[in-house]
């Protein structure tokens, strides 16, 4: 799996996938729906599927001396690697916003989502949706990428809309506080549970589908 993951990261994926990690910096932008940063990071991952399809990578990998299902595991592992790095980078920037920059005027008057613990939970949810709808959907055919990405796009748009709305509801204002509030732990916990759960479910389903696919 280590060699397959290295292949995904440095042979199959285009540099763009790595460059798009920089969208994690969107966590610092005030007055902007910063959760879309997670979407752009996933868009970078989407690019790796486009280049993989152009290169006929799935058939090449399936012919290597690995189990057929390892092809699926490697794709999920690489997505988790990118998502993990993005989450790590976002966490550092979020910590910066919640401490040193917590009382900066642009953030205190920010009508849109602030980077805080709740934001990190939403981010994990956005990644979970990508793994479920896009990668899981891709392995229904191992070549169609349009429909799975559209499905993911709609799902993440709904997530952004809900996340941007929640903190305007009575009693939920602390969700958007520039500093920590225990209420922020709720979306974080939801994201922390949903990410591994949905990813593992999507992977297991994708493995079963891919095993029976004709390449």
């Amino acid at each position, binding site marked *: 799996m280590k060699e397959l993951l290295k*292949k995904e990261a440095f*042979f199959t994926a285009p540099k763009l996938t790595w460059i798009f990690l920089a969208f994690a910096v969107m966590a610092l932008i005030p007055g902007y729906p910063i959760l879309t940063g997670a979407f752009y990071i996933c868009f970078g991952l989407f690019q790796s599927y486009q280049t993989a399809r152009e290169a006929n990578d799935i058939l090449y990998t399936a012919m290597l001396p690995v*189990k*057929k299902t390892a092809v699926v595991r490697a794709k999920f592992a690489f997505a988790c690697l990118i998502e993990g790095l993005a989450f790590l980078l976002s966490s550092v920037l979020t910590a910066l916003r919640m401490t040193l920059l917590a009382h900066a005027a642009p953030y205190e008057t920010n009508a849109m989502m602030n980077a805080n613990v709740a934001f990190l939970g939403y981010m994990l949810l956005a990644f979970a949706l990508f793994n479920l709808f896009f990668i899981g959907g891709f392995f229904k055919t191992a070549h169609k990428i349009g429909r799975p990405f559209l499905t993911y796009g709609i799902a993440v748009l709904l997530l952004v809309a809900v996340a941007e709305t929640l903190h305007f509801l009575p009693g939920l204002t602390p969700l958007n506080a520039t500093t920590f509030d225990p209420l922020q732990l709720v979306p974080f916990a939801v994201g922390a549970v949903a990410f591994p759960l949905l990813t593992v479910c999507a992977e297991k389903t994708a493995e079963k589908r891919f095993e029976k696919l004709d390449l």
Partner: protein
Amino acid sequence: MRDVLTVRNLTKTYPAFKLDGVSFTVAAGSITGFIGRNGAGKTTTLKSLLNLVHPDSGEVCFFGLPWAGNEETIKPRIGFASGGTDWYPRKTVGQLARQTAVFYPAWDEEAYRKYLTLFALDEGKKVRELSEGMRVKFSLLLALSHHAEFLLLDEPTSGLDPVSRDELLTVFRGLADEGVAILFSTHITSDLDKCADAITYIKNGRIVASEQKAAFIDAYGGGTLEEIMLHIEKEASL
């Protein structure tokens, strides 16, 4: 000689075609020609052996081991080439070979260099810059560089010039003499006249013969494989 491949009742149904109870064996150190008309099921059979096409039923055993549950043990011992290399067209021959090599514990750099020279392949060339024949050679280079005990080759000589084909058949004969089993499909039956030990004939998804080449030729009253193939197919259309 022991069988390195045993196929029993392999079945795969498509809307317009059925691979119907395909059964045959391949012995160690032998070259088996896999022949039949276009669309007879040769590529589907070869891909089904490696689960690249998922069979509906049937059993495939390599080296006495069933494919199911032993995929990781079997695959490093096999070399598979299906036509020309058609992946990673923008990577160079060297880049793709190096990437492939890391997955094969038995990758032999010396053998790789030997076949690279024999096939006159340039490591710096991108796959997309290779002619169809050179892509076939590259595909074979990857299959031959890791000491595979069994080579599964789908039309390995198509697109090659007569000199390259002759060189390749000599390579195959040498490998078979060292104990490597080779199963290859081809439309160029004269290649099999030169080097095959056994013939497996598939027609409309069914195996109609699988035996030693001499016995196969005798059964049809002699002649070349092309003449026998024409006879079998014309007989069916009468």
